[in-house]
């Protein structure tokens, strides 16, 4: 049976990708505004990376999101759920009414992404530091089954403060895993404040490299760099890649950009109008 694989869609243009990301950004600010809660900053920093992944190398069939041999996307920074929901909305896996129900009772769009609630979500996140380990488990299982599926994990830079990330980094290298890659959303802001105030991790790439990972540093809002890095990591099955994506928290909405206040705060009615003007 031939399946529609997004992985075949590598000819999509940078302009088209940016347009998809723009629409996703509109979804993100609208759903957080409607819910009156959520995490717009880290969703806006991550969305270009997610679009760049799903629209190029990622093997996924929107008509059959639970296809066993699909690639896995483990959104470890699960508070940035609006970014994932906006992507799944674009792909037609979830609907506008699902988006509109974000964070309400019974919604498939839970506050933090949850595989138990949403088709197309591969991990139940919400507690930072766990997703890379989960992805490693998926990767080991895929290798045991001689499956072609690749595992993609997205973590936040603040999340690297959790020790479990480094347990997983060590184990990935020890077990010679080549079908696992991590994208680090390096936006330099965490819940309370800038990382340099709270707990600066330093050179994340060098740290992954010291654990035996191949590291690529990119501008996380430059689609050419995003697509190229994803392609390189995806095509090399000999080792795990850490893509350190330098991003701007709140990217695309001027008053949210680089502003710790919008880590976990919904825009007001007036702020929504301003945001949508900027994104239109």
């Amino acid at each position, binding site marked *: 049976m031939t399946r529609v694989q997004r992985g075949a869609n590598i000819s999509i243009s940078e302009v088209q990708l940016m347009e998809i990301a723009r629409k996703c950004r509109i979804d993100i600010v609208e759903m957080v505004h409607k819910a009156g809660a959520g995490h717009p900053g880290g969703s806006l920093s991550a969305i270009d990376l997610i679009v760049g992944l799903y629209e190029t190398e990622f093997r996924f069939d929107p008509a059959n999101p639970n296809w066993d041999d699909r690639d896995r996307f483990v959104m470890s920074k699960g508070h940035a759920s609006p970014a994932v929901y906006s992507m799944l909305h674009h792909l037609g896996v979830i609907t506008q009414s699902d988006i509109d129900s974000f964070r309400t009772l019974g919604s498939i769009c839970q506050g933090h992404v949850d595989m138990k609630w949403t088709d197309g979500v591969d991990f139940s996140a919400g507690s930072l530091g766990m997703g890379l*380990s*989960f992805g*490693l488990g*998926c990767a080991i299982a895929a290798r*045991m089954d001689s499956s072609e599926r690749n595992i993609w994990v997205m973590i936040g830079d603040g999340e690297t403060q959790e020790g*479990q990330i480094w*347990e997983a980094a060590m184990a990935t290298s020890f077990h010679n895993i080549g079908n696992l890659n991590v994208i680090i959303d390096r936006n330099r802001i965490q819940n309370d404040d800038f990382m340099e105030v709270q707990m600066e991790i330093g050179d994340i790439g060098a740290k992954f490299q010291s654990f035996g990972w191949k590291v690529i540093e990119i501008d996380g809002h430059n689609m050419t760099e995003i697509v190229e890095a994803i392609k390189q990591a995806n095509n090399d099955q000999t080792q795990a890649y850490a893509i350190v994506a330098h991003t701007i928290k709140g990217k695309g909405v001027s008053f949210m950009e680089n502003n710790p206040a919008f880590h976990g705060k919904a825009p007001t009615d007036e702020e929504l109008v301003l945001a949508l003007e900027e994104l239109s």
Partner: protein
Amino acid sequence: MSAPSSGGASRDGYGSALLKLASDQRVVVLEADLGKSTKSCLFRAENPERTISMGIAEQNMMLVSAGMASSGKIPFASTFAIFTERAFEQVRNGIARPGLVVHICGSHGGIHTGTDGSSAQSIEDLAIYRTIPNMTVLHPCDDLSTEELTLQLLNHDRPSYTRTARNKVPRVYTQNNVKEIKIGKGSIVKEGNDVAIIACGVMVNEAKIAAEKLSEEGINASVIDMHTIKPLDGELIGKLAKECGCIVTVEDHSVIGGLGGGVSEYLARNIPTPLEMVGVEDRFGESGDTSELMSHLNIDFNAIISAAKAAIKRK
């Protein structure tokens, strides 16, 4: 690596069960540098390609297990009971919440572990895992029942925690009658109608000794192996409450939240009945010989006899 000896510790039953489960290719085993202790080493020796060394990193082990479960595997992950507690939140959020079927085994549970001292003596594990929705919690009493219950986990549809013990104890079951035990159903080890002694783990043997001594005084006690702490066999507890009129719970665990906690919750809600608890009072253990410690912490057969008499008086 020698095979488990006859009449081994419950951890030996875990090891032998893993060997039998190996014929199912979905079964994988994860270790955190304690395979020789938990007995998962038996599986490793014959199935190295399906045994994953996680090093001394329990949090990672729990989520790697979860990822494998999400990909069609049936992971059995083991370490010391106390070190599973280190990864409690990983079990809660990463395994139980999405309902991923991972089977965790915590060996060396309770003060029975002895001379290692309080840092190794998990007396909270049954309580904490019992609070997690979706979790099945087991604490078998001997090697045969541990093997049987572990084999049953292959077709179990939810995550589980099984506590095993380090030390050998006399077998409660035989090769024949052990096949009758079932997850979720308490086993009647001895019938009696003056008092029901509901025990788990290594304390089932201690309860049997207490019941024999009570019978010499004309007190007819029933002894129950409540190997499944969750889901708790409320039907049996209700029946025992009616037939005996008083109950004693016995566990190598804190009196807070474990078997005694579960039984008392059931009784209070359904059929209020005099209850005495034998377990570690609200304190940590310490180094010592196992039998010395059991006496020192008031969880040996003498404590059970006293508790049984106290319970009968309250009828």
